[in-house]
């Protein structure tokens, strides 16, 4: 080492060993390097946009999109603007994400519990499910389902069940509500339904108390559900028979027009069906593993203690294991929800017009870079929302722990 470097000291310490100086140097160098790199990229991009005639800009957002969007959950017309079309696509992404998350959670919990079943056959089947669906790329699964649905018979030769359920290669149609019937009756029914649910909860609480006090099996949850469902269904039937009017108008799908297109009812179109099936089956495999790990993280003694107190196996699972396992389950579960939201971006490849799919279509006429900057920002917003939820939950459980 040259002499002048050796003599270069600060506070009696050679500068290259002085912690504060070294740390500041690292920070300044890395900060400057990062800023310089980004500036260089931005400068190059700016130069390219100017000199290589690369289209860029956001002026197109106000102009008419003039392209139909196959599936939309808010009103849409080809004469709407690009910006509005992007919002329609974002709503599609959100709808698929919400339904996908609900269904994947249900399926995932079922399979996760089945993985730990004492029934050998069920446990092995669940294992096979997880190992297969987790290890095959989602895109391949989506394309597989896409072509399976495509192989269904066309609309006119489609499968019809009970003259009300139609299955064909454009989707599945089933009866559904189409509007509000008599408002007053709907109001009465809803009030009765809420009362029924409250009654069910009350009955179930009382029975649970009785079980604790007197022992024996009183089936609190089952009875509660039965009471609630009986009131909801019974009041519906009585109201519609007595008044002769239905609280909600129903629409039954049926063939319509020259081409026999199925109209009315609720139609799950092929694209959405494929994305939903693919995303749910794929994500459920991951959720199942998270649920299994969560349940296994609860000590064996907890189950045994629960059983010793007289809980049924299901009761022990519900009131002893699950509440404790949730702490382990929820953080990775939220990251799976985020993954599902992001994975819905593959929908475009199988004909479901979500954000990325619509974006790719738009790039045929308008600047790709601008469109994708907007799309990436939208996804970033969704992701940050999910991480916010995750952080809030983490804070919540750490508060509980510190209490």
């Amino acid at each position, binding site marked *: 080492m040259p002499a002048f470097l050796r003599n270069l000291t600060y506070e009696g310490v050679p500068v290259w060993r002085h912690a504060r100086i070294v740390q500041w140097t690292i920070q300044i160098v890395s900060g400057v390097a990062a800023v310089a790199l980004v500036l260089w990229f931005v400068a190059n991009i700016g130069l390219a946009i100017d000199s290589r005639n690369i289209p860029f800009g956001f002026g197109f957002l106000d102009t008419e999109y003039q392209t139909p969007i196959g599936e939309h959950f808010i009103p849409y017309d080809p004469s709407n603007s690009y910006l509005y079309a992007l919002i329609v696509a974002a709503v599609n992404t959100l709808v698929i994400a919400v339904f996908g998350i609900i269904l994947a959670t249900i399926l995932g919990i079922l399979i996760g519990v089945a993985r730990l079943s004492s029934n050998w056959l069920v446990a092995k089947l669940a294992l096979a499910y997880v190992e297969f669906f987790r290890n095959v*790329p989602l895109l391949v699964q989506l394309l597989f389902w896409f072509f399976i649905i495509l192989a269904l018979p066309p609309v006119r030769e489609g499968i019809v069940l009970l003259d009300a359920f139609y299955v064909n290669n454009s989707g599945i149609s089933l009866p559904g509500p189409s509007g509000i019937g008599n408002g007053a009756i709907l109001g009465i029914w809803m009030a009765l339904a809420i009362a029924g649910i409250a009654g069910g909860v009350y009955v179930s609480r009382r029975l649970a108390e009785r079980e604790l006090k007197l022992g024996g099996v009183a089936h609190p949850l089952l009875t509660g559900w039965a009471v609630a469902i009986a009131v909801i269904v019974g009041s519906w039937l009585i109201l519609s028979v007595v008044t002769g009017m239905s609280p909600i108008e129903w629409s039954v799908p049926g063939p319509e027009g020259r081409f026999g297109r199925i109209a009315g009812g609720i139609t799950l179109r092929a694209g959405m069906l494929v994305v939903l099936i693919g995303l749910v089956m794929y994500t459920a495999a991951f959720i199942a593993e998270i649920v299994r790990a969560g349940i296994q993280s609860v000590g064996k003694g907890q189950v045994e203690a629960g059983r010793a107190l007289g809980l049924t196996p299901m009761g022990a699972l519900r009131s002893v294991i699950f509440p404790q396992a949730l702490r382990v389950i929820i953080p990775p579960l939220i990251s799976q929800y985020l993954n599902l939201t992001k994975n819905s971006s593959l929908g475009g490849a199988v004909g479901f017009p979500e954000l990325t799919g619509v974006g790719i279509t738009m790039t045929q006429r308008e600047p790709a870079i601008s469109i994708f900057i907007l799309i990436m920002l939208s996804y970033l917003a969704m992701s940050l929302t999910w991480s916010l939820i995750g952080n809030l939950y983490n804070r919540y459980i750490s508060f509980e722990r510190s209490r």
Partner: protein
Amino acid sequence: MTTKQTNETGPAPALPPPILDRGAVGWAHANLFNNKFNASLTIVVGIALVFALWFAIRWVFFEADWAVVANVGGRFLIGNYNSDQACPGNDCFWRPQVSLMMVTFLMGMGWGVAGSKLMRNLALITVGACVLLAFIPYSAERMGMDVRLLLVANVASMAAGWALARYTRFGTVKWVVIFSVVVFVLSLLVLQGASFLGIQTVDSRQWSGLQLNLILALAGIVLSLPIGILLALGRRSHLPVVKWLCVVFIEVFRGVPLITLLFMSQHLVPLAFPATFPRNDLFNAGVVITLFSSAYMAENIRGGLQALHPGQAEAARALGLASWQTTLFISLPQAIRNVIPAIVGQFISLFKDTSLVYIIGMLDIVNIARKAVEGRVEFQGSAPEIFLFVGIVFWIFTYTMSYVSQRIERNLGVGQR
């Protein structure tokens, strides 16, 4: 009159266990019919399973038309690499095969060094698959004798690797790592070709098929781990500038879908470099996949670092280790050991994610499959067959990875110390 004397003293011989506890019946009683609920579950699930198997077997053997898979054949593996467009004269088939031979050489070396059953089985199964492929009953013009011989030659290359590891001083982990790097670079060079050596170059846009997925995945796996470690350390650093740079990088790359990043890699990244830079779409896609994966890797490793007891680092510092030594020799090895499942899970998902290059128009194995059925009348109804086949190909690789990770975990004694 003689009577048999039965009242001998001592315990009676033990009776055999009841029939319900013995053999197959005992097993079924304990595992399938141990209570009312499980018994009914077994019956319902069993009936459903029999029906499902019946339909599956009928479909696989009688209804499905597997001709489409045979029709694509070798193109699943190398895609358009040997097509007229990529390689005039169609004599480039040996180059992917030489790369494959280098890989089997490495596997032989790995077996020789580790000497474990696991490595032996991996090497033998791989080479066995190559040999089996050599005997596929294609016609001579579809699959020439040279192709078949080169496939069988994998046996020799694996044996050479094994012998090198066993009988020379190259039989150490260090040399396996060095050879791996050399092989990776060398196989890229072989695939690329070099005109000054008299080997015609093949444009990287023509690299396709499973080969493309494997190249992207291998590059990503090799590079995303070190980048991820650096990012994780950066995020835990107490230097605010370094920390926030890493946080922003990780959150942005984790916050958007890989497809949008891949799309940008084709539209924006080429613009970010001066026009004189050579443009290589494959390289750009590979970089984006690697960075995407390293952001996830960083979070996994950060989890491992967070789970470490602070006493470990304090003890190391107290013993006089510098902070870089503490990180490198104390914290990181333990942190990584604890998150092996997560790391391998990320490798698996990286391999699966290579299929997304399909969306930006690259000819990976998924795109090859799609092109094989789309717009071809004779294979119109065969799409489920071909995608099932592609799914199984992916599954073989990913499942092997997860199996190996479980074995490594067991050997390192994770969760037992």
